């Protein structure tokens, strides 16, 4: 501790150490190496390096903001110090790995990792590079803290968009190549493995500038919108919704089969998410066995429509060969039935007990599906193959592009039902239940009916999703229905914002869409879900697109765009 300035060096070092540990962890669990195949900016920085840069940048930023109140240079210096400490930890890794041969314990402590960390240089030169880069990045992090709030927000947003576009480079190019008009612009913007340097600069300037201007002037646009008479406002909202629907209807033609498939997966997650959103988001009943209804929908669809009956196809003896459309209502009905049946026993439970019991139910269903006991009926571990496909006349819902429309229609229906339910009597009853069960009951809400309706509606959506999933994949295996599915759906509605309908779409796009698009993500999918859940709960428990937004609009409580408005933190489960 330096007495003259009384400056908190130890704080900066501490934060640098934390940043370094994070960077170490990210390296040792293999993310850095795995993600190095993809460039954010072609030939300049890979995604793996970006991870480490982010860790050090954050360390610099926090170190600088801890020194708040000091002169700007001191803050920048403490950022640099934190960055230096963090990268020093990483150099430790570089020094230790080769002589000790840690690979028998840490499979990811490979020479390739060292090469990435030392920029493919000799050890000594590489360490020097690493330390210098760490200090520079830390300083940059400190500088971000020094910037005025609005500019900082714009810069961070712009960096985020550069990263996102760099990541999705392949996707954007594949999608847009059949549009010759934009071909030249694409070539200019994207390099072989990521954004090109001018492209990155352009994206940065456009996003940062646009965001800054919007923050300065956007309020006027919103004011004008809110000044409209209610009829016109509603009309323009409906108009907006119709445009979105029209674009979505046209989407599979642009996307092509692969991306349509991704869209379908996202769609099925949206459908399941909308269901769980009713149970968890609206009614506040934490259900961890949600996969059970998805499995029941899928299995009913499979058993009723499979063509593979008899000795040559496993041991399934029951197969009345319904058509898809005949089986669909039965599948949804079965899911609803189970929703009610599993709902009755847990009527009196709350919070964590409910979570554990539903988790138990989900596991029971999965183990039963896997067991030899039920094998003659539902195929055991061999599953069910040749599940029927839906058709209308000659139009078969078989390819991703055609299935897209079925899933789209199902999502539309589910959104409509959720939306109408939310603002109706049962919806308000659910919210009352969520806020305080005892008070809700005292106000005359029938707890049994309200809870069972939530479970039944949620199960219906999930069953529908499962039934379409079975038909889409064409085969059912018990392994598809494990706890991870429930966690996946739960994570997506929490990320999006519990109880928020647009939040379900945001969550599904991020949590189901991104891992499908970026193969590297798939490996670390659950790791990131876990981290996201923790970070969300710590910093923004209301989600990315919280439910209360519309309420705030009504109350005219608008802050700057994108500003987290923490004064209304809506989280269900207030019941004790």
């Amino acid at each position, binding site marked *: 501790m330096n007495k003259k300035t009384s400056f908190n060096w130890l704080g900066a070092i501490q934060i640098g150490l934390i940043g370094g540990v994070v960077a170490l962890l990210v390296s040792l669990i293999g993310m850095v190496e795995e993600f190095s195949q993809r460039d954010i900016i072609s030939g300049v920085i890979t995604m793996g390096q970006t991870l480490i840069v982010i860790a050090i940048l954050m360390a610099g930023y926090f170190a600088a903001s801890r020194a708040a109140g000091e002169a700007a240079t001191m803050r920048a210096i403490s950022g640099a110090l934190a960055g230096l400490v963090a990268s020093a930890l990483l150099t430790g890794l570089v020094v230790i790995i080769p002589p000790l041969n840690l690979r028998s314990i840490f*499979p*990811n402590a490979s020479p390739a990792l060292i090469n990435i960390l030392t920029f493919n240089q000799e050890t000594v030169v590489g360490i020097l590079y690493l330390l210098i880069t760490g200090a520079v990045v830390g300083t940059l992090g400190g500088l971000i803290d020094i910037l005025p709030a609005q500019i900082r927000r714009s810069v961070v947003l712009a960096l985020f968009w550069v990263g996102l576009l760099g990541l999705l480079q392949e996707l954007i190019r594949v999608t847009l190549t059949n549009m010759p008009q934009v071909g030249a612009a694409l070539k200019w913007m994207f390099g072989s493995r990521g954004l090109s340097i001018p492209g990155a600069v352009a994206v940065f300037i456009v996003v940062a500038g646009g965001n800054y201007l919007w923050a300065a002037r956007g309020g006027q646009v919103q004011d004008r919108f809110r000044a409209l008479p209610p009829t016109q406002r509603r009309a323009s909202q409906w108009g907006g919704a119709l445009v979105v629907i029209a674009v979505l209807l046209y989407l599979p033609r642009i996307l092509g089969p692969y991306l349509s498939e991704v869209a379908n997966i996202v769609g099925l997650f949206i459908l399941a998410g909308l269901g769980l959103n009713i149970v968890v988001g609206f009614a506040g009943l934490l259900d961890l066995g949600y996969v059970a209804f998805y499995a029941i929908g899928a299995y009913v669809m499979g058993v009723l429509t499979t063509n593979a009956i008899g000795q040559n196809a496993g041991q399934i003896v029951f197969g009345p060969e319904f058509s898809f459309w005949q089986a669909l209502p039965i599948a949804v009905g079965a899911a609803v039935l189970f929703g009610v049946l599993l709902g009755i026993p847990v009527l*009196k439970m709350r919070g964590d007990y409910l979570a554990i019991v539903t988790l*138990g*139910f989900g596991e029971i269903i999965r183990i039963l599906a896997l067991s030899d006991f039920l094998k003659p009926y539902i195929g055991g571990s061999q599953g069910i193959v040749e599940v029927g496909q839906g058709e209308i006349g000659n139009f078969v819902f078989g390819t991703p592009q055609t299935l897209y429309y079925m899933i789209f229609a199902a999502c539309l229906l589910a959104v409509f039902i959720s939306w109408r339910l939310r603002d109706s009597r049962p919806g308000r009853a659910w919210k009352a239940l969520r806020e305080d069960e005892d008070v809700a009951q005292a106000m005359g809400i029938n707890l049994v009916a309200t809870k069972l309706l939530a479970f039944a509606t949620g199960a219906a959506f999930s069953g529908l999703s499962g039934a379409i999933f079975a038909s889409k994949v064409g085969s059912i295996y018990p392994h598809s229905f494990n706890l991870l599915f429930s966690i996946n759906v739960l994570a997506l509605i929490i990320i999006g914002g519990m109880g928020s309908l647009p939040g379900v779409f945001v969550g599904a796009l991020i949590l189901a869409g991104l891992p499908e698009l970026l193969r590297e993500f798939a490996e670390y999918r659950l*790791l990131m879900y876990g981290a996201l859940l923790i970070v969300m709960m710590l910093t923004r428990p209301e989600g990315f697109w919280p439910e209360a937004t519309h309420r705030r609009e009504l109350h005219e409580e608008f802050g700057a765009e994108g500003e987290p408005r923490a004064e209304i933190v809506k*989280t269900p489960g207030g019941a004790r």
Partner: protein
Amino acid sequence: MLRRTLERFTLTDLFMWLVGGSIILLVVVGSVATLRAGNYTARHWFDFVVFGIAQGSVYALIALGYTLVYGILRMINFAHSEVFMSGAFTGYFIANSMSRSGFLDRNPIIGLLAIFAVAITTSVTVAVLLERIAYRPLRRSPRLVPLITAIGASFFLQYTFRGLYGSQNRAYPEVDALDGAWSLGGEFVIQKIQVLVIVAAALFMFGLYMFVQRTRTGKAMRAVSEDKDTAALMGIDVDAIIVRTFILGAALAGAAGVLYALMFRQVNFFMGFIPGIKAFTAAVLGGIGNIPGAMLGGLFLGLFESVGPTLFLDGLGIPAPYQLKDVIAFTMLVLVLIYRPTGILGERLATAKA
């Protein structure tokens, strides 16, 4: 009196009674059928029971972690199963290196103690970090928030260890001293490893019990679990006590991890999930928040799970009943929570919130 009861008797109650009744009927019919068929000798049953007790003592050790944390924070530490896994998984590496150098076979006691030390240290570290990073900032949030955080932490830890140590199964080394079995006269034999597991678990549990009942920290823990705010007024550092509770639970989980690994000889990143859920079941079974309850619940569940599939299901003509042992455990969890959420020992904490 009867009329009042009848008036309150709803359709859902009827449904619950029917479910409960049919499960009891199934269990009775199955057991009678199995025993009458006589496919299993006394020796089989003895083996089932011993295995059940050994398995149950491991469950009990893990369950204590759930119960301790629950007693103090009123939250289910969903990530406790990963604390257990981290200890066992890290212990593997020292066990493996000692086994390859021959040290473990020459000095089995020192070797085993070293494995325990490494495993417990790892588990404690993970648990302390978990508490500091994920749980402490959320102490005053609505109940659902820490629970979701715990679920997130559970997956984060699972896949962090998968990334760190790889995704394949690792086989725990054999310890010569623990190989083989002792004869108890007649056809009854008992595996040495099972004896070790039972004795070690009993020692750990006794140690914990004495700690909680006899030491100053234990007293403070009980005070905090009774009433946090009053305890703070009495000069108890609540945060420090909570950390110590996590440390205690994690130490037991780390020890349980090694015992589990020695018994089942395999570790991987996903190994914590099923024992974790079962241990939670055990904690609830005994009455969550209640320390002797967790021990009792663990033993009970272990026995049930080991004897149950054969006893209940074999007689019903269900093929491969052992596949369904987890179903039995989960069904028990559900039944206990539905019909007796206070557990066997009826901790009153549970009535206040279940």
